């Protein structure tokens, strides 16, 4: 499967549906007023008051968000694959958490954009800005070539979990694999709820996002508590949401199967010490080789490698 042309083919396949929904990018927003009481039926000379809408974010700022997303992914790829620097990657994670998490309050994010994109593909009346489309596509394209670079140091949900890891335990591989199937169930549920008719449509991923309440410092109390529990568990189990629940992680894992460049473990007989296996909290190294679809680009394997440290000191 890892042939040379496959990624480009997959890229084209990814971009193909957008030809159809490009017109949808310009559908103006309209309230679904058919269901509300109309002035005629209310009577008494009632007039609909002018609806006050919050001003949308300036367009160039939206473009800036996408540019920053792309730039952060580029930096993540460079730091992990070329510099192999865990230290700087942590710095990038903090920066992403601050910007995409606390400043942009967890929105716009590729994980939630799955639903917007699905609805845009199904419902011709649904408007989706090109910015959302780009946010959805960019990490997938990066995954086609380099693996899950988005997960490491860019995704705010990933970053907050990455930073709380203190003393991770190795989850038994079979359990890990079984729990990993949950994310596909979640993906299916999210799509199933998103394609329902407009009035009973429900964006499950956003509603049950465990960390967005923390980014906004407000939210439904039960979600805040669940988010807190996720972070508390995340101190001992590496990134539970990313590995087992994140629906976008499932899509990225699929794309990563085609990736030819990603995190690799260079073998050497004097070096098959397995330190990187012990250091990987995500069970992404099997038989001394990195498994791209599980690798979350944290660079811990490089950080733990005695030979690598020696090389870095020399050069």
């Amino acid at each position, binding site marked *: 499967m890892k042939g040379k042309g496959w990624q480009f083919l997959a890229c084209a396949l990814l971009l193909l549906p957008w030809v159809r929904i490009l017109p949808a990018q310009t559908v103006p927003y309209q309230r679904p007023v058919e269901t509300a009481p109309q002035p005629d039926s209310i009577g008494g000379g009632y007039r609909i008051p002018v609806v006050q809408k919050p001003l949308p974010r300036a367009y160039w700022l939206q473009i800036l968000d996408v540019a920053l997303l792309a730039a952060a992914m580029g930096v993540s790829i460079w730091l992990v694959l070329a510099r192999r620097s865990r230290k700087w990657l942590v710095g990038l994670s903090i920066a992403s958490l601050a910007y995409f998490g606390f400043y942009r309050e967890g929105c716009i994010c590729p994980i939630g954009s799955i639903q917007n994109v699905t609805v845009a593909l199904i419902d011709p009346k649904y408007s989706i800005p090109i910015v959302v489309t780009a946010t959805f596509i960019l990490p997938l394209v990066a995954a086609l070539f380099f693996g899950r670079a988005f997960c490491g140091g860019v995704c705010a949900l990933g970053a907050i979990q990455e930073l709380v890891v203190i003393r991770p335990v190795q989850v038994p591989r079979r359990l890990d694999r079984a729990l990993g199937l949950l994310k596909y169930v979640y993906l299916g549920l999210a799509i199933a709820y998103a394609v329902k008719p407009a009035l009973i449509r429900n964006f499950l991923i956003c509603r049950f996002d465990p960390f967005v309440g923390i980014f906004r410092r407000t939210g439904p109390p039960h979600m805040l508590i669940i988010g*807190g529990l996720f972070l508390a568990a995340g*101190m001992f189990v590496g990134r539970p949401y990313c590995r087992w629940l994140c629906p976008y992680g499932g899509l990225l894992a699929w794309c990563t199967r085609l990736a030819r460049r990603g995190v*690799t473990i260079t*073998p050497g*007989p004097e070096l*098959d*010490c397995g330190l990187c296996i*012990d250091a990987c909290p995500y069970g992404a190294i099997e038989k001394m080789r990195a498994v791209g679809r599980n690798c979350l680009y944290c660079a811990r394997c490089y950080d733990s490698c005695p030979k690598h440290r020696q090389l870095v000191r020399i050069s």
Partner: protein
Amino acid sequence: MSRRRGAWIAGSMVALCVAILLADYIVASPKSTTAARLARKSRDNVVAWVLIAGAGAFLVCAKSAWGRVSYAPRAGRSSPQPPYQTVAGYQPAPPPAELDLAFIEEAIARLGRGKESTIPLLQAIQSHYRYLPDDALRRLCELTDITPAEIAGTSSFYARFRRSPAGEHIVRVCHGTACHVSGARQITDELRRYLAIPGGADTDPARRFTLDEVACLGCCSLAPVLMVDGRPAGKLTPASACAALRELS
């Protein structure tokens, strides 16, 4: 020690903030907007920021206090023997055919049977059989004045002579200075695994490839470089070395 104290202090701060927020949530009356409720709300916002800062401080302290695991190589973990894939289309080597020793007599007739002919004779045998078979050497001792000790000495002294059968293709990995510093060792190791060459041997069990570490191939600008039967491949990585092997063989 102070790190741990810091972690405990920050941790209890986090716990306190969580307790305040939970208490506010429990006593809150969502029905009416009173001055007290607004005050509580603005206080909660501050508490939330303190909580986030406290959590950050807790993480920094806790990571340096408890997070450093001194990983040591495990005693039981041996070099992995995963199913490293070998080159596709492998067939086990056919059992070595009965040596045709007539060549020895022909070579002796041509090159002479004195001690001075040792090296020419060994060269002739090597170029005929591609290595020095023990049977051929024994026959050589019988037919000439050369003693087994001399043959052993000569054949083990010169690196060009080999006493074990060679593979179908000879892979020469350059270990010259330029290649050495750019990772010839890693490439050799990766090729050994890829071809499943056991430790101590230089030829894979199916005798398709013989891996030879040579001093210099003379194209340092291409380092690290290897040569498969005289065809070179340069600027290698462990992964591309395996690919080059597939292409050139």
